[in-house]
Structures are given as structure tokens and as C-alpha cells.
């Protein structure tokens, strides 16, 4: 509350507003360019490289990093770990906004965005992995909207509707886990259809399993990482329960992430052996593959273990950040670095600055909306009228 008071006294031209404003202005200009000149006007996409960073980052990373929603709600509501309850709302909000952003980003990437409902409503291509992705993301976005809605309804004081929605919690959580299992994995399965284009080190029949399993520790790490940032910027919004449970969440999630990463690492090694790709490890692709596997999976897995053993919250927070980075590296590797690896470097893709501009613009929109919501709605604290009524 005190922050709002000071914010009102401050001029609108505070650093956050200036930076965000400039980015949004540039974003609007780029949006106009995109929808008047086509993809060719602001991207480096080509006939050989039809997917760029809007797919690699906005879609693949966006969805993976929004996995905190289903992991946290499953831990709390399905596995009965009620001490994580205060982490559910921030995680659901992050997931909901994340998915909304993913869908918004797709409007830039596809040729005719108003036809995005076609595969669901008009003509269904059920043999396509992308159909599964589209249907699940569409349904899950709705699930997340409903899961998030109690916070908004409490803010608006719509008690009757809120009561009905809260009763749906269990069903929605189960539905959310099912949908997430399907689309997290099928984002990896997208690349199964092109074994001749993806480097053998990254191509695997396990791609869907890898994407799903890695989404779990991506989600857990993102919850830790996001809570670190939130503690920094929205500390005054957090109630006693949230603050008290916070370190519980951090240690618990770090422990879980550590175990899952260990399993993921083991699977990756099995995969390497089963495809007998060892001989590729000596090549430059192999070195980069090892950097990913050892530097961004094995290392953070180990650091999480040390952090939990020593109760070193600082180490865990840095490890969470590193793991999030590792997920981004992995998704970029599968969809860009390993994709079209056989083409000469002159025909490879590197993003145009305006593509990066759109992505930065969309992340900024995410931060603005997130900030708007947590400053007004009961996300980091329980609404006084609804205390303990979950």
C-alpha cells in the first residue's frame, strides 16, 4: 500500500514506465510493419528456415517456463502438499499470462492469425502433432483462466461466482496436468517428423518425453526464480503466510527439481547409447551437446542437491536461474541449432533484430500485466474476506 502512495506522488516518468513505454512504442511500430509488410518485412525467415525465434523462444520456451502452473497446483492439490499453497497463485498467474502471451505471439508468426481457431472448429487435421499442441494449448489456456479467476473475483467482490469456481479446483488441476502432459510432450514431438533435418544428437524418439520431463523441472525452477524476483519487487504485497512458506517452497521445489533432473540426465545418456551417437561427441556439435548436458543439466542438478543439503537458499536461487537458462538453451538447440544442421552456414537462420524486438515487446507486456495484477489482486496474500477458505 505504501508503494502505491509513493507511486502516486512520483511522476509517471519513473524509470520503469519510461523503459516499458519505449519498448511498447517500438513494439507497436514493429506490429504495424508485420501486418502491412508480411513476415518478410521484419524477419529473417526463409523457405528453408520457416520457424525462427518466435517459435523457439515465444512458443517452446514460453510453454516450458509456464509449467510452474501445473506442477505447483498438482503438488498442492493432488499430492496434498498443502504447505505449498501460497505458491499456487503466483504460479498459476505466471502460467496463465505465459500461455496468453504464447498465443498472442503466435498471432505474429502465423500467416492468417484470425484462422487460428480453424484446426479446432473448422477442419481438424488429427494426424498432425501441431493439432494436438493447438487443441491442448487452447483448452489449457481456458483452464488456467478459470484457475486464476478466484483472485480476480475476490478483487471484484463477486463472491457467488468465486464459490462455484473454487469448487472446481480439483477437476481443473487434474485436467491441467493431463493437458500439460500432452502438449508439453508434443512440442518435442513436433520435430519427430523431420529426422533428416535435426542433428542426430538432439533427434530422438524420446523427444516428447524429454520435453515433458524437462518442463517439470523448468516449471519448478521458474517458480523459485520468479519468487526471487517477486520478493525483490513486491515484498510489501506478501502476507505472513506467503513469507513463512516461501523458504519451504524453495527447498521443496529444489529437491524435486534435483531428482527429476537426475532422471532426465540418465535418460539422455541412455538415449545417446541407444542411438549410438557417441562418435558425434567429438565434433563441434558434440561439444555443444555436452555443454548443454553437463553444464545445464548435470551441474544444476548437483548444485540443487548441495543447496538443499546445506540449506543454502542463495545457491538454490542461482541454480534456478541457471536451470531456466538451460531450458532456453535446450529448446533453441532442438529447434534452431540442430535444425537444418546439414545446410551450409550461408543458408542457416539468425534472427533479425526486429524479431527479437517483437519478443522483447511481448515479454514487456507480460511484465506490465503481471505487475498490474499483483499490485491489485490477492496473489501474494490472502484476501482478508476469504482467509483460509480454499
Amino acid at each position, binding site marked *: 500500500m505504501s508503494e502505491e502512495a509513493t507511486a502516486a506522488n512520483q511522476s509517471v516518468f519513473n524509470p520503469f514506465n519510461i523503459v516499458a513505454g519505449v519498448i511498447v512504442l517500438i513494439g507497436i511500430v514493429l506490429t504495424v510493419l508485420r501486418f502491412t509488410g508480411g513476415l518478410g518485412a521484419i524477419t529473417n525467415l526463409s523457405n528453408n528456415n520457416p520457424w525462427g525465434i518466435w517459435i523457439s523462444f515465444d512458443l517452446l520456451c514460453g510453454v516450458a517456463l509456464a509449467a510452474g502452473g501445473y506442477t505447483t497446483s498438482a503438488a498442492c492439490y493432488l499430492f496434498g502438499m498443502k504447505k505449498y499453497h501460497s505458491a499456487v497463485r503466483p504460479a498459476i498467474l505466471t502460467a496463465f499470462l505465459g500461455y496468453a502471451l504464447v498465443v498472442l505471439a503466435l498471432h505474429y508468426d*502465423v500467416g492468417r492469425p484470425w484462422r487460428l481457431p480453424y484446426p479446432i472448429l473448422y477442419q481438424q487435421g488429427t494426424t*498432425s502433432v501441431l493439432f494436438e499442441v493447438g487443441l491442448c494449448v487452447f483448452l489449457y489456456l481456458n483452464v488456467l483462466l478459470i484457475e486464476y479467476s478466484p483472485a480476480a473475483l475476490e478483487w471484484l467482490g463477486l463472491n457467488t461466482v468465486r464459490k462455484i469456481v473454487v469448487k472446481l479446483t480439483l477437476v481443473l488441476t487434474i485436467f491441467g496436468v493431463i493437458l500439460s502432459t*500432452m502438449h508439453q510432450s508434443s512440442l518435442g514431438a513436433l520435430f519427430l517428423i523431420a529426422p533428416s*533435418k535435426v542433428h542426430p544428437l538432439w533427434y530422438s*524418439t524420446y523427444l*516428447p518425453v524429454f520435453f515433458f*520431463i524437462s518442463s517439470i523441472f523448468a516449471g519448478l525452477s521458474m517458480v523459485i526464480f520468479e519468487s526471487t524476483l517477486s520478493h525483490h519487487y513486491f515484498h510489501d504485497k506478501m502476507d505472513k503466510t506467503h513469507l513463512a512458506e516461501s523458504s519451504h517452497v524453495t527447498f521443496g521445489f529444489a529437491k524435486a527439481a534435483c531428482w*527429476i533432473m537426475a532422471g532426465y540426465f540418465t535418460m539422455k545418456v541412455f538415449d545417446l547409447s541407444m542411438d549410438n551417437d557417441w562418435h558425434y561427441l567429438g565434433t563441434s556439435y558434440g561439444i555443444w551437446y555436452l555443454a548443454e548436458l553437463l553444464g545445464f543439466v548435470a551441474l544444476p542438478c548437483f548444485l540443487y542437491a548441495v543447496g538443499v543439503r546445506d540449506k543454502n537458499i542463495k545457491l538454490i536461487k542461482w541454480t534456478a536461474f541457471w536451470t531456466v537458462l538451460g531450458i532456453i538453451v535446450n529448446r533453441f538447440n532442438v529447434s534452431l541449432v540442430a535444425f537444418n544442421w546439414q545446410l551450409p552456414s550461408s543458408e542457416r537462420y539468425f534472427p533479425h533484430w526486429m524479431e527479437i524486438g517483437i519478443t522483447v515487446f511481448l515479454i514487456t507486456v507480460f511484465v506490465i500485466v503481471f505487475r498490474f495484477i499483483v499490485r491489485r489482486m490477492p496473489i501474494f496474500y490472502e484476501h482478508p474476506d476469504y482467509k483460509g477458505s480454499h
Partner: protein
Amino acid sequence: MSISRRKFLGWMGAAGVSLTVGQPALAAGNKHFTGYPESFGVLHDTTRCIGCRKCEEACNKVNELPAPERPFDDLTVLDNKRRTDAGSYTVVNRYDDIEGVDGPVYRKIQCNHCLEPACASACFVRAFKKTEVGAVTYDASVCVGCRYCMIACPFNIPAYEYNEALTPRIMKCTMCYPRLMEGKLPGCVEICPKEALTFGKRYDLITIARERIRKFPDQYVDHIYGEHEMGGASWLYVSGVPFNALGMREDLGVIAASQFTSGALASVPVIAGLWPVLLTGIYAVSKRKDKIAEQEKRQAIKATLAKASADAEAKVAKALEQADLKNKRLIEVEVKKAVEQAKANNAEEGS
């Protein structure tokens, strides 16, 4: 609590693994689609191609594509390797300095019209269709423009209108499907001055190709490209040089693209069917555990209380007993006192 979480994650991992590993063989089954029986195709004999680009010109004309930057009789265009793009459904490339060959070899590139097309399998609005005549057609009226077909195509054929703001289409050879329907030949086949392109029933074309290889074993590599590649295609190629010298990949394998994703898609019913059961079960187990813990707690409290009250009763009884004794004694003392008092009084009165 943490044990059950770990256990659960283990199950999820195990379930996920068995799903993807188990499915492909099952989904593939023992069926092998070898194309519609009477479907057409084209045989491209690269030993006959002279790189005149007449096919490019005819294609451009019959498909009403935009005029090229440089005219079709400008053969310097062949100095660069090209691929199909939004303005050209077909291109001819020249391959120089091939070992054991004097002079260049030419190869025409266009959609191969796969028997089980990757693009059709990948399209989430079914914009692509393998027609019974053999042509793979595209319907722009449903296309969303996601470009997954371009990711999927092993031959890098579909192109995209990147400079169309609002109505971009995928551009790709249709095997002149509209002309076939009118009983005409594809534009490129009709114009080819060297009969490097032969149109016919795919089955017959394979026989023709075999016959050429058999008759002139010195002129041909003993392979018909497209007969089995990626499950087979309607366009077939014979060549005097190894196909990879003509930029054609020989490592594509013989499995149709759709088979690579069928396993992953087959896991959908398993997840949709079993996940709710598993998750509800886990919820029930954790709930029951809580309930039992609660019950045990309550029982323990009850027992403690019972014991405490029993102890208390005993104490009270003892206290009462003691109190009784004390009282008795007190009474006795009082009585004694009273008696003595009375005696004393009597004595006083008597005196």
C-alpha cells in the same frame, strides 16, 4: 510427503517412457501404403536433361506465376543452386565437376508428390490432400500459415509468400492437377524437348525405369530414386551419377513421414484415459493418508485424555479418601472436644 512426490514423478517418467517406446511398432503395424493403384507419376531421366529451363517457363505460364527477375532463356541463372520458392514451383539446377562425368548434369526440382506426404500428415487443418490421381494438392482457403509443412517436408519443397501481409499462401507444384482433370499433361512434361520427363501410371514408370537401367547398365546408377524414399513418391528419378551428387539426399530412409509421429500421437488416448485415474488415485491416497493421520491423532488425544482423567479420578479418590480420614479425625477430635466440653460443663454445673 517428499517420498510420495518422488514416487509419483518416478511413475510419470516411467509411464511416459513406456508410452513412447511401446507405440511406434504398434502404430506402424504391417501395412505399407504403396500408393493409389491407378495413380500417375512422372519419371525424370537426368541423363536426358539439358538444362534448357523450358519446363520452368511452361510451369510459370500454366500456373500463372509472377514473371521472373531474369528471363527463362538466361542460362546464367544456373550458376547458382536454387530451390523452389514463392514464385517458382520448379527449378532446374546444374551440377558441375562430378567425378567420372564429362560436362555438367542437370536436375529438375519440384514437389515429389509423396505417396504418404509429410506435409499432409503435418497439416493441422488438412490443407494438403493426396489425390487419387497422384497429385498432392493444397487448399489455401483453410491454411493458417503455420509453415509446419515446410518443417516436415524432407525435400524442402513447400515455399511461403513471406511478403504477403495478410493472405500468404504455401506455394508448391500441384502436378498440374487442374490440367490432369482436363485430360492434359503437366506443363513441364508437355514442353520438355528431350523427353527427360515421362508422364504415366506410376507402376508403368517403374517398369520403364527398370528397363532403361537393365538395357544401359553403364549409363545408369542401379536405383530408382523415389520408388521407396520416404515411403515412395509419385515422381521418380533415374540418373547416371550418384543421386547425392545431384543434391538429392540418400539418407532419408524408406519410412513415410507419418510413421515418425504416429507413436507420439498414439500416447494421447493413454494419457487421456489413464492420467485421470492415476491422478485421482494419488489425490485419494494423499487424502486418505491425511485422514488416517488425523484419526490417529484424534485417537491418541482421546487415549491421553482418557488416561489423564483416569489418573485424575484415582487422584481425586485418593484425595477424597485422605480427606475422609482427615475429616473423620477432625470429627473425632471435634466430638472428643465436644464431649470433653460437655463433661466439663456438667462438672461445673454439678459443683
